[in-house]
């Protein structure tokens, strides 16, 4: 396995799309097994992927070999990272906190319900877990204690997202609301996300606003301090299961599913200032993860059974 970081001169312009943006290949990776989900962390200097045989693989900039991390809990359903810390969530509700650089398990937790998603606070001191059977739960990653549980009118939560400073936690919930909690777990406000359930949320870089995407393919932006809705797109009818804020805090990438097959069908970009909506000219089935560096959206794209690339959107 070799990590091949492309030099500036060898950037490959893959596709040109509207408004002059393009995908540039930043790095290419060979993998020991097929990777079917990945996240790019620390401005793309770390990539964590879930291998087909259920282990986690960690790539670190400057090292050619990925570190294999076997957790003996089955296949992770969700990954999150903050710096060198990675959290893996499993279908049985188990959560494993790992030092990604050393490959050492730091803590094992139990959310006791099937996992939708999880997120680490910026300092990796807390992990928030969205599960099917419970509102979002927050655990202290130093002690293993569950420090708070959110609330819903019914059902569980679909995603959890910390603000860049870690002072606000958003929970998108089955009952179609997005709820914001403070550091102490206190509910600050609840806002309607749309007629259908929200699946994902993302903050702007300064934490002043956030965006929520819903099961009917709509996105709305909100003011973080109040939960006041600022703008909204029309529903596309295609569920948006994940979003990623661009570093400019003006554009949001939306990962859309076919509502029948629930397979990826498009990666869209919403310009929150102009309300312009466009589709990235990329095969959505090849996109296995995303992230951002200081200036660009990053996509992790599968290019072969045992290869993937890290691409920036420029």
């Amino acid at each position, binding site marked *: 396995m070799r990590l091949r970081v492309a030099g500036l001169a060898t950037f490959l312009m893959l596709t040109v799309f509207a408004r002059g943006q393009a995908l540039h290949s930043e790095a290419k990776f060979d993998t020991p097994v097929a990777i079917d989900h990945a996240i790019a962390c620390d401005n793309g200097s770390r990539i964590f992927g879930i291998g087909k045989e259920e282990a986690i693989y960690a790539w670190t900039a400057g090292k050619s070999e990925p570190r294999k991390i076997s957790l003996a809990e089955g296949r992770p359903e969700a990954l999150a990272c903050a710096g060198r810390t990675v959290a893996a969530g499993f279908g049985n509700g188990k959560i494993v906190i790992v030092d990604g650089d050393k490959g050492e398990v730091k803590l094992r937790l139990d959310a006791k319900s099937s996992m939708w998603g999880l997120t680490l606070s910026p300092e990796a001191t807390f992990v928030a877990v969205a599960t*099917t059977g419970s509102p979002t739960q927050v655990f202290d990653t130093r002690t293993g204690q569950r420090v708070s549980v959110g609330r819903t009118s019914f059902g569980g939560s679909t995603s959890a997202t910390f603000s860049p400073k870690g002072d606000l936690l958003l929970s998108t919930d089955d009952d179609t609301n997005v709820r914001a909690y403070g550091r102490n777990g206190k509910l600050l406000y609840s806002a309607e996300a749309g*007629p259908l359930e929200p699946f994902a949320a993302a903050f702007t870089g300064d934490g002043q606003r956030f965006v929520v995407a819903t*099961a009917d393919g709509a996105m709305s932006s909100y003011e973080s301090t109040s939960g006041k809705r600022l703008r909204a797109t029309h529903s596309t009818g295609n569920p948006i299961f994940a979003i990623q804020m661009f570093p400019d805090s003006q554009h949001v990438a939306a990962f859309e599913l076919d*509502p029948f*097959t629930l397979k990826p069908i498009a990666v869209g970009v919403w310009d929150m200032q102009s309300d312009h909506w466009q589709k990235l000219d990329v095969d959505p089935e090849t996109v296995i993860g995303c992230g951002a560096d200081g200036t660009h959206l990053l996509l992790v794209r599968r290019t072969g059974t045992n290869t993937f690339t890290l691409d920036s959107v420029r």
Partner: protein
Amino acid sequence: MGLSRRDLLAKCVSLGVVSLATNLSATAAAEAWSQSEKKSRPSTPAAETGPFYKRNAPNTAMMRASNDPGLPLTVDGAVYSTRGEILPGAKVEVWQTDHSGHYDLLGYRYRALLLADAKGRYGFSSVIPGHYPARVCQHIHFAVTAEGYKPLVTQMYFGSDPVFEGDPDKNYIKDPLCTSRELVRPVMLKGDPQAVIAAVNFELVLEQL
């Protein structure tokens, strides 16, 4: 109009056909009698909410349009507490795919909000939902709420689903989201040969807060 249990008991006592021990009043005896007839019920097994719950569904018991494809279906039942009390006014929200497995995300087809009547009963007309690639079994989603009770989110399955191969006892686990055999309901086919309707009964039992 029939007598209430208390009035009946009082009448029977006055006529001498029922006698009460000295420590029992007619009111207390009537209440104890009623309580003993209430059947304790296990709570309906919960299942995950998603996908595609939509709030503000219409209050209609007829989700099927006249020309909709698919086997017509009626679902009825009652909403109870685990102590066997009926829960009039309980909100029963249901959503499902159409016959071909598609949820209506932009509108409200095959979605309804029902209120349990004075006897705790609810019911609706629909079609047997279709299969879709991401789910193994045909199912209808339920979200049930009543003041003072834990919200119940669950899914109902059909014993007639081909996935079960006629043996839901053995095969209900083929759908990993089917959390209990109890959620797979028997299907009765009724009506005349030109207009067969599937009928399913599904009791909903809520736990107290």
